[in-house]
């Protein structure tokens, strides 16, 4: 059967044509396409791993942000607390100081009053002494106008002294 016998002419043409096609496509065709396929596969793999990395990084950043916010909040409340305490401190200290100062003023006033009272008393006492001496002088001058009265008075005084001893 002629169908089963390879025709030498066609066989040689086929070797030639296929050889040329193979050469041309090896040189200008397939490496470009398969190179691109390989590169694209690599690019996609890289893209996937990069996306994964980015996701992880984003998550880390989010965690970091949350932590920072929490930290800031706790610091804020700490600061508010501190401020309140300091205010309280300042107020109570001021009150204390005011009390102390008032006390001192009162004390001073009292002391001055005391001193002045004593001064006044002393003054009064002196004046009372002087007045009584004056009075006594006048009385004596009046009652001892005679010699007998004078004698009698001296005697009485002597008696009094005697009684005292």
């Amino acid at each position, binding site marked *: 059967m*002629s*169908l*089963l*016998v*390879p*025709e*030498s*002419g*066609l*066989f*040689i*043409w*086929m*070797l030639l*044509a*296929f050889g*040329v*096609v*193979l050469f*041309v*496509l*090896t040189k*200008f*065709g*397939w*490496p*470009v*396409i*398969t*190179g*691109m*396929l390989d*590169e*694209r596969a690599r*690019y996609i793999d890289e893209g996937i791993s990069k996306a994964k990395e980015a996701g992880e990084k984003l998550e880390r950043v989010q965690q970091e942000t949350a932590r920072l916010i929490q930290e800031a909040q706790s610091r804020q409340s700490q600061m508010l607390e501190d401020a309140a305490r300091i205010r309280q401190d300042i107020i109570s200290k001021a009150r204390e100081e005011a009390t102390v100062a008032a006390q001192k003023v009162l004390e001073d006033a009292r002391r001055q009053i005391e001193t002045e009272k004593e001064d006044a008393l002393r003054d009064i006492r002196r004046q009372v002494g002087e007045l009584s001496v004056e009075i006594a002088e006048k009385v004596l001058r009046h009652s001892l106008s005679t010699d007998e009265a004078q004698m009698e008075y001296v005697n009485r005084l002597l008696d009094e002294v005697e009684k005292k001893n």
Partner: protein
Amino acid sequence: MKEAGQLDVTAMIFDHVGDSYYWHLTDIGETSVSAPLPVLVYSKLTGWHAFSSSRFHHGHEAYEGLAIAPEGSAHAGKIIEVATGERPLFDFSVTKNVAGLLIASVLLCLMVIGAARWYKRRDVTAPAPKGFIGTVEMMVNFIYTDVIKENIPENTARYTPYLLTAFFFIFFTNLLGLIPGSANLTGNIAVTVSLALFTFVITNIFGTKAYWQEVFWNKALPAWLRPLMAVIEFISLFTKPFSLTIRLFANILAGHCALLGVLSVVFLTAVSMPGAGNYSMSVVSVLLAIFLDMLEVLVAFIQAFVFTMLSSIYISLSQAHHHE
């Protein structure tokens, strides 16, 4: 036995699947419409001849001592030397198949290089191509990733161009062969035998030491079995490409014959049962032919895939390493 007006189915089928010095397109009435093709012959007696096949006047006349052998003779349909009745030494004529081969080769090169140009002008960040180039890429990707890289993880770059070329060449010529009036390339044994020869050579010239050792002195076997296995393995070196040759050739040829046979029912019933019988049978035969044609498209792909797959497996066997 042949009735007048009846189609000679066998002759018609052989005419379609066989080779010819004319590109026969159609018959209008009694005139055959066909394109003449160049004849290129070297004869031991008369030397080189180059002329158009129209000189033979459809086999009715001899030219420069050469003629087309008549039906029924030993070399029916082939050029013979008038003097001896034998084939000339070399017949490089551009027959219908050779012309089809050249056209297919040029188209294939243009297609692939056209696709490659698309990639050359873009970088990896470009979106994947659509349309025709996308289709080429899909098939290249399928063969490259799932067949070649899968079977030949090492030295992939060395074998990729051949396997891709083989796949696309077979697939493309299979599809071209389905076009009515075109050449039946992959259903011709000379074509498939040269494809298998390429696989055979490429497989064996890069065969590793371990591969040849497995062929001729397989240490995994008991010593007494080794010579026997060496003979078997040696024969299998040749049966592999032989099976590639026959599988592709027979599948495509059988497909074409079946399709033509089913279609000729239209013409056979026209004579044997004219009228309603013919019409109903024609409908059946055309539907069946459409089905077979679709099947052939599938076979076109499957046979190209199988050839490439088996070639890559043979290559991967030749890349064996010792596993110590």
